[in-house]
């Protein structure tokens, strides 16, 4: 009896302990801390193939740590895509905010003032930071002004540890100093002799940052940590050699292993979510060299309009002393054949390019009517102009101004109101606020300068009988493009006076068709052919298509993808954000831009009429599911994300006054390009130096297919095949961390305990 009672007690105790242990093993603490490994330019397919391949020397995966952490024990998104343009600055902006894009290029230009937003150049930021002039990288400043917080902003600053990256808040001088000390340490010198090569500053900086991160992991008060690496992006641009790429990936793998090991050693190991993400893919194909097509050369040339061209970097910068200038942000390539602006390149560059995008270029052209005015004013300046032509030109000037009077007057009144809003004085010692105030002052002055020119134009009464007395510079703003061009303008764009000069018709009016030289830019670009194409994998046509926004129709936004005169595709979006496609002419057929109609990977229910489905309205989810395996993956959504009115994506800071919000929206709207040029497969537009490896920027699946993998904190081993894009990333992380996240963007993931 005694024994039986004792036995029951033991059994009960065992049961209790068993239950406790069972509960303990399933009771996984909710994620509290996040460690982000941000890898620039890593394509999911490249990663996946390397993870699957067994290294005969080790008997394990070529990337053993990534396979172990994520492949075997984590959640892998097999179909994760860059939303919008597959470029670093816009892609990271989407990832680290989880909000629709307000940054749409690696460099952006304010059309009114010429201000350059160079998101990739670190040097001016570091210098500005050292001089207490800058606090954040330009991308962060733009997001702050737009009222869009970063993922790390959801944590108090003391709880975060951020590495060096594009969207960086502040500079950790300690890490830089540590890296410098490492670079010139005795250990480094010994290592140099031992290894035959000096370690680069980048590599020692990465080591110093990693050491920082490991220290941060030991601190239970830090809940947000990230590590950014651009090594793979650099290598993949330089070569498509698979061995070289895997060699860099092995470095990333070892880093992931060290971070994972450090996480496991830390006190918050069970509450830490380890995430690896990449911003975009990369068009690396073994054995294929990516070829460059020079848009600046084309735009400099007479067929291209003989523009003076602005870029943010020097062309062939390795072969110029000026190419060493780390502070460079605007470079003007003058045209020697300018039709009417000879020797005025520094004042009137008329084509501004963002070609940092490699497979895509954003092109800003000066407003067509400003060109006409400029040409007519130059003619009116001439004393030898015959009276009839002078009168016709003066009338034409007046008519152009009248056409714009209403719009320019509204711009003047609205912007004046916006610029005259009093600025809040910065809090004492708040460098960020002080910087913003200083930026606002500079903007105010620049915008007022532009508005003054508009006012002068509105006041201007051209003399029909005498040569122009006013200075053209007082009427036509310098280093300014004015308002965006319409699609019709771009197809009939004035690049100079006609060879025979201004022409007057029988009625005494200016005959515009005979007075000006015109260029049809979409047609010009797609008809370009390259002579030197020694590789069979490449087409001699370097341009795939041109994308531009058309005027809205009722409540619909319309975007055009121009393949050539017969291959034009329209993308429409309605007020409910649904999307529909339609060929601009004729019915659905092969060869239209994006090639969806003929793509065998277009995933539609069996028996569905392709043409009917493509022309019908569908929501984004339906489009993504149907197209993500296609050659152009999420191109339809990407075009909408990239060309939709950017101002609609600016929420403004909480409590912002309506006029101030309108100003912030306007500032973003002013950096939108006239049109985007997309390179054909294995072509790129990077004229700074050759990128013979892979490139990105297009909607080709290889360029958009990105990486998102998570492990730890109770996330089960799982492969998710449903497609998602950048907009899902930050909201899902916030949700997992138990923080508020925008509804509709969270990927539902259950933890082991749930």
């Amino acid at each position, binding site marked *: 009896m005694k024994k039986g009672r004792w036995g029951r007690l033991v059994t009960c105790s065992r049961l209790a302990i068993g239950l406790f242990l069972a509960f303990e093993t399933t009771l996984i603490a909710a994620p509290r801390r996040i460690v982000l490994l941000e890898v620039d330019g890593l394509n999911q397919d490249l990663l996946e193939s390397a993870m699957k391949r067994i290294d005969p020397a*080790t008997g394990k995966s070529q990337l053993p*740590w990534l396979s172990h952490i994520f492949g075997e024990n984590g959640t892998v998104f097999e179909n994760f895509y860059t939303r919008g343009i597959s470029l670093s600055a816009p892609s990271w902006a989407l990832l680290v905010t989880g909000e629709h894009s307000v940054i749409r290029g690696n460099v952006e230009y304010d059309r009114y003032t010429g201000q350059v937003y160079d998101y990739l150049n670190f040097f001016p930021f570091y210098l500005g930071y050292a001089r207490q002039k800058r606090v954040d990288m330009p991308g962060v400043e733009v997001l702050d002004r737009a009222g869009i917080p970063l993922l790390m902003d959801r944590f108090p600053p003391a709880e975060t540890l951020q590495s060096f990256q594009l969207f960086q808040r502040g500079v950790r001088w300690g890490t830089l100093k540590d890296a410098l000390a490492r670079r010139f340490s005795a250990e480094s010198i010994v290592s140099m002799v031992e*290894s*035959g090569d000096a370690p680069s500053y980048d590599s020692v900086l990465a080591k110093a940052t990693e050491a920082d991160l490991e220290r941060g992991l030991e601190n239970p008060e830090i809940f947000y940590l990230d590590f950014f690496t651009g090594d793979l992006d650099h290598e993949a641009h330089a070569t498509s050699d698979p061995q*070289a790429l895997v060699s860099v990936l092995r470095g990333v793998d070892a880093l992931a292993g060290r971070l994972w090991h450090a996480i496991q050693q830390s006190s918050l190991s069970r509450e830490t979510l380890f995430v690896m993400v990449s911003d975009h893919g990369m068009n690396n194909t073994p054995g294929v060299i990516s070829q460059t097509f020079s848009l600046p050369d084309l735009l400099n040339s007479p067929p291209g309009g003989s523009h003076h061209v602005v870029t943010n970097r020097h062309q062939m910068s*390795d*072969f110029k002393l000026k190419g*060493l200038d780390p502070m460079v942000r605007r470079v003007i390539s003058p045209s020697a054949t300018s039709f009417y602006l000879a020797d005025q390149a520094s004042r009137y560059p008329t084509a501004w390019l963002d070609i940092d995008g490699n497979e895509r270029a954003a092109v800003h052209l000066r407003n067509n009517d400003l060109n006409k005015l400029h040409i007519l004013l130059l003619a009116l300046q001439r004393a030898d102009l015959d009276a009839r032509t002078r009168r016709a030109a003066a009338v034409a000037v007046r008519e152009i101004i009248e056409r714009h009077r209403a719009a320019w007057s509204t711009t003047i009144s609205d912007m004046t109101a916006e610029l005259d809003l009093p600025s809040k004085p910065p809090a004492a010692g708040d460098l960020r606020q002080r910087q913003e105030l200083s930026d606002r002052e500079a903007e105010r002055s620049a915008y007022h300068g532009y508005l003054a020119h508009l006012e002068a134009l509105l006041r201007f009464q051209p003399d029909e009988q005498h040569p122009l007395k006013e200075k053209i510079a007082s009427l036509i703003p310098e280093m300014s493009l004015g308002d965006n061009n319409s699609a019709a303008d771009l197809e009939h764009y004035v690049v100079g006076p006609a060879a025979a000069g201004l022409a007057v018709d029988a009625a005494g009016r200016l005959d515009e068709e005979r007075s000006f030289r015109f260029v049809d830019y979409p047609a010009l670009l797609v008809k370009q052919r390259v002579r030197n194409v020694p590789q069979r994998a490449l087409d001699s046509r370097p341009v795939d298509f041109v994308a531009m926004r058309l005027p809205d129709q009722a409540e619909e936004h319309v975007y055009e993808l121009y393949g050539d005169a017969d291959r034009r595709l329209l993308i429409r979006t309605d007020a409910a954000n649904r999307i529909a496609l339609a060929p601009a002419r004729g019915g659905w057929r092969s060869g239209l831009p994006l090639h969806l109609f003929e793509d065998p990977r277009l995933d539609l229910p069996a028996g569905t009429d392709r043409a009917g489905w493509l022309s019908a309205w569908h929501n984004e989810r339906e489009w993504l599911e149907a197209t993500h395996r296609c050659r152009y993956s999420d191109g339809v959504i990407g075009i909408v994300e990239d060309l939709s009115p950017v101002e609609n994506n600016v929420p403004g800071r909480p409590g912002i006054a309506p006029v101030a919000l309108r100003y912030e929206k306007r500032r973003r709207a002013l950096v939108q390009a006239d049109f985007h040029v997309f390179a054909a497969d294995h072509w790129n537009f990077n004229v700074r130096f050759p990128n013979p490896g892979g490139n990105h920027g297009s909607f080709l699946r290889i360029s958009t297919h990105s990486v998102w993998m998570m492990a730890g904190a109770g996330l089960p081993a799982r492969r998710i095949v449903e497609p998602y894009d950048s907009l899902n990333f930050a909201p899902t992380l916030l949700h997992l961390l138990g923080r508020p996240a925008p509804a509709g963007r969270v990927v539902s993931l259950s933890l082991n305990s749930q």
Partner: protein
Amino acid sequence: MHALARILGVLVVCSMGMAAELDAPWPQTPIVHENRPPAYYWKAEPAGKSAQLLTLFCGSCGAASDTPGGLPLLAVLRDTLGDENGGNDRVTYVWLLSYSRPTLGQRLLSAVPFFYWHVGQGSSNVGKRDIKPFFNLRAPRHPVLTQVGRDILQYTTLDPMMMPVRATSRAYRTNQLNHERLHLEEAISYLRQAPSSNARSELSSVEVNTVIARLELRKKLLGGLVSERHATKFGEESGFEQERNRSRNWELLRNSAERTGLVFEPVALGGTTDQYAVLWLSAGPTGGQTERSSVDLSSTWKLLGIKDPWREANRTGQDRIPLAIYSLNYPNQPLLLVDFRDKSRTRRHELTQRTINEVTSGIIGISHFANWYYYVAADLYDFVASRHGRAMNQAERLDCYSQFRVSLALDRDLDPQLRKELQQRVSSLSLNPLETATAHELESSRRRYSLLEAEAQRPDGWLAQRLDNERRAELASIGRTGKSKFFAGALHAASLGFYTRRAPRAEGNLAKLDSYRRMEYDLNFLEGLVNAGTPPEIVYQPARIQAAVTELTSLLPGVSSGPTRARAQRTLYSLRDLSQDVSLRADCSFALASMERPFGGTHVAAAAAEIVSEDRP
């Protein structure tokens, strides 16, 4: 003094004149009839009972196409210790079979300042001296010490002497270094084409990378000091770097051709692909150059290194005019090798730079130490010039030249007439009296190979003797500290190679060496895992790690060297701490126990069992 100056002047003028003489009408023939990569393969044969001679052949190269059996290019000796275990193998020697030792006459001429020709074909006799290894991979430090010693001798003793001594010694030394570099690059070129596998009949990719790295590092003053561990990585990285350069230059040249209205054509030469390219001028009054005048192309022409052909009137009646051939291997930009319109251009460039160097350091005696500002200014000039598209790195140019001459000699797809002409151009680039014609060198490679093959068969021959010496030197270095090894190296250099510290001849040397090498192999492997700082079983199959630990355990009792035992102990401790694999931890514990209580048998087993039980959860 005046007479000497006059002679020097005459020599320089003659060089220039000879360069100009090479001008000839533009060739009209197509560059390549057919591009077919030649097959490179290894042939393995035993060298005595405990080594292997591996020879790299080119099956369809140059002269080889006429005779069966392929052309032997390069051989390596793999010291296997007579077993099939790859862990104790060492690649010991490299022979460049096409390498001819300079004759006395060539050596004398190479000491004449401003003498920039190679005279004659070099020696046609191939004797035993010609099968001396080109490079000893087991003693990479020896050339470092020798070179440093020679540099010191030059700076401290020869430079302060009268001008003729300084000038001749410097001329001789420059020619000698260039000659060595030329052949180092030749050997590297062959190895880059070599197949690799883990089969015993070929070199493994790790071995190929290590050999390439050692040869590459030989070009650097302190390259021989690079550790074995880093050498393989260096070899792999240098391959990636070359690939990056090639792709970049390929596109740079194509794009420059596009901008200037020329035609770009990559050329496969001697089994290489994408290493060379030709620019053509296409037909018609403007050819492809339409509407390009809006862009300033001066920097592009500078980069191409040729004159703008569109400005020349005389180009009618020809469909396609070849302008130039470029090497795509030069770092940063394509290197002009042959300018078909100005055939002395490249030679003039080489000659000018070499003459300036000889005048400043040999004649005037400008010193790196006393006149450092001159060299700072010269470096600054080079930097600025290279930023403007000029190829200023003489050593890298020499490498490209070496690759080109070899590719050309091995090629058989090129139009024969054109090949001959190109060979003449390449030959004109040679400024070194020590050099001999590539075709001549390749012709005698077969004879060198026969001699080497015969030598390898002799059990008590010179090669066997030499290998035994190497092994004894290796045995003598076991357990030595870095300082001690350095001192031994210095003694070797100081005695001009006559003295080398070696273990005495003994019966058990081979077994001892086998144990040592296997232990080194295991230790290096385990150290690599430990240095990663993460659980090793994730990166390697635990069975593979356990096998290394087990082997180490069995070998350690025979090790008396304190530093080696300490190293092994450190590694095993770290491995045990890092691993989360229970049986691997147990193996480490067992190994440590056997080290700490070296009284063997049951005691060790008991102690290990104790530790193992502590490890088990």
